[in-house]
């Protein structure tokens, strides 16, 4: 799944960026998914937008921001590298995990639109 947010200085670039959702290399049965954002993203503002979208912020450790959903999914991002990981809860049936990851990805993309 690929989405292209509109130009925004918050993403640190002058033009459009393309975001791609892929399986994590260490994915355990489609539970972990990944996309990468520009390092120059305004991470604190993005964190605020994700919280406004209904995600629950969890403790930030070693530069890793973590958010949870009501159903136990997680979104993590590493501010120093721009890596974003979507962790689908293990109770989500295997065939629905891709769609659960896409829903998390959409939340992220719409949060970026609002920056």
């Amino acid at each position, binding site marked *: 799944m690929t989405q292209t947010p509109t130009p925004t200085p918050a993403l640190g670039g002058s033009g459009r960026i393309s975001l791609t959702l892929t399986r*994590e*290399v*260490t*994915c*355990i*049965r489609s*539970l*972990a998914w990944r996309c990468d954002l520009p390092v120059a993203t305004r991470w604190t503002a993005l964190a605020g937008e994700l919280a406004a979208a209904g995600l629950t912020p969890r*403790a930030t*450790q*070693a*530069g*890793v921001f973590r958010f949870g959903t009501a159903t136990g999914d*997680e979104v*993590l*991002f*590493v*501010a*120093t*590298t721009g*890596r974003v*990981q979507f*962790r689908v809860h*293990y*109770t989500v049936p*295997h065939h629905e995990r891709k769609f659960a990851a896409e829903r998390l990805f959409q939340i992220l993309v719409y949060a970026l639109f609002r920056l």
Partner: protein
Amino acid sequence: MTHETPAASVNRVKIPNACITCHTDRTNAWATDALRGWSTSARDAECEFALTPATIHAAKPAIDEAIVRRHVVPAVRGLDEDRIVQISNGLLEFMRGVAGDERGLVAAFNVFVAAHLPGYYNETVYEAVHRVERTMADSVPAIEALMREAGQVCVFSTFGNVLLSPEWEGLVGPPTGVPTDVMSFCTAIARGLGFGHWLIAEYQPHKRLVIQCTSTYEVPFYRSRYGLAKKPRSYFVQGAALAMMVLAESVQWTERPQLTNNYYVELFRSQPRYRVEQTKCLMRGDAMSELVVEAL
């Protein structure tokens, strides 16, 4: 051989059952139900699932802090010590904020890990090895190789996935693929996750690695339960040291490899190949444990 039933895992010891370490998307309750569906004829008479009566364990001493302290020798500095200390302290700090889910599994560092009772591992390994030594001496090399491979698989899967995880990326940075970095990182992970105080005594890329340990979680158990060993018995660290050499030398970390079973087989069967020898062992009464890995 007996195994802890899922019901016992849920009700008695509150740890994840072995079933759900493979069926990672399932619960102890699921495993309990699934086992009910097994027909009696499908069960191996030598491998029945049954609760181990508590009375069997009653006479065995608990491994308390005093026993652990008795068998731990003062830490020694190794190569790249300052960086290893800094990273392992960061990992310890990180782990304080991590909790298990309702199954007892911790989803972190790209893996599901269990906050495992070391005594469970120790008893499984050493009782099995001793039983084979007593009853089928010809098979001792085979079971020792299996126990060694358990350490090898653990380092490949767990340490490897830690190195590729976002948590590690935040703590240390993305993987560089520099062999000396990988070696130091694995040593820090071992300390941070509580495997013991491991240190790098010598490392010549592509040739030789010497890992020393002033503590491992097997030693207090073994010494208090069985006394001095007659031969080196740190099977886990033997396999781990060999796997660290392979991870440092043969994995292209910057390409973010998927650490699958197939890749494991390919990696450990391809060239260059290494052998490991344990030259010193705390369980045998030596001043520390030492593992020497050399290219074949």
